[in-house]
C-alpha cells in the first residue's frame, strides 16, 4: 500500500527556512503570498493490504523517527 507521512512545524515555532523562501517568492514577484512554512513529505510503501495495520505502522514510524514531536506535528495518509 502506498502511504504518505507529512511532517510540519508546530505553530509558534519559528521557521527561518520558510521565512527565507517567503522572501524569495516575494522578490521573484509572485503576488499574493502571505506566508510560507516548510515541512517534509515521506512517501512510504507498506507491505500487505491491511489499512488499519498500515496506519499503526506509519504512526509508529512518525513517533519514533520521522517527526520530532517537540517541534513538529505529523499526519498519516494511507492512499487509496
Amino acid at each position: 500500500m502506498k502511504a504518505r507521512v507529512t511532517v510540519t512545524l508546530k505553530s509558534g515555532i519559528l521557521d527561518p527556512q520558510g521565512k527565507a523562501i517567503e522572501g524569495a517568492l516575494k522578490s521573484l514577484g509572485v503576488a499574493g503570498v502571505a506566508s510560507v512554512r516548510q515541512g517534509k513529505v515521506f512517501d512510504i510503501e507498506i507491505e500487505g493490504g491491511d489499512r488499519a495495520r498500515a496506519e499503526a505502522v506509519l504512526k509508529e514510524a512518525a513517533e519514533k523517527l520521522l517527526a520530532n514531536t517537540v517541534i513538529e506535528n505529523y499526519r498519516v495518509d494511507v492512499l487509496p
Partner: protein
Amino acid sequence: MKAAVLVFPGINRERDMARTLRLVSGREPAMVWHADTALPPGTDLVVVPGGFSYGDYLRCGAIAARAPIMDAVRAFADKGGLVLGVCNGFQILCESGLLPGVLMRNQNLRFICRDVYLRVERSDTPFTRGYNAGQVIRVPVAHGEGNYIADGETIARLEGEGRVLFRYASPDGLLDPDWNHNGAINGIAGILGERGNVLGMMPHPENHVEASMGRTDGRGLFAGLVDHLAQAA
C-alpha cells in the same frame, strides 16, 4: 578518567575530542562504534563528539540518536554516569531524549564558524568546577543548527533549576542579542539534564586546550571532570 568517545558515520570531531581527553587526563579514551551495544567496562565519562552524523539527514542528530549504542548510554546516564555532548553531540542528546529541547537552524540561516564568548553560570557541577561562576571563556563554534529552543514550561524549569550552564555573552559577560550569534533562547549555549550528570553544549571547548591553539579556555571543563572523577574514585 576512563572516557569513551562515541563514533557515528559522519562524525568528524572525534579525534579532536580524543586528543584533548588524552592531553588533559593522561589516558587514552576508548573509541566506541555506534553499532556496539555496550560501553567498555569501567567507563566513567561518555563523550558524544561533534560532526555531521548521517550527513544531518532528516534532522541533525536524529538518526544517530537511535543507534544501538545509545541504549547503553541511556542506561549509563540513568545510573548517574557523566555524559558530555558537544555540537552534533548536543543535537544527538536532545534527539535521544537525554536532554530536553531542540537545536533549530541558526536565526540568520548561516553556518557560523568563529570564536564566541560564554558566561559560565555555575561552578558547582562536575563540568564547570574548573571555572568560577560568572567567568567568561572564549571558545569556537561551528554549526548551522545551534539555535536552542524548548517550550515555555521547559525553559522555565531549566532556568528555575539552574540547569543552564553556559550562555552566549559579550566579552564582559553581558547578555546581548548582538553576541548571541545563533539566536538561542535566553542565549542558551549549554544545558544540564534533570539529574545534573548530562551536559550538552554547542561550542567546542576541546578546541581551546593548549597554547598552540591560541587559547586554553576550554581546558577547565576537562580538567574539572578529571578532578571530579579522581575524587569520586
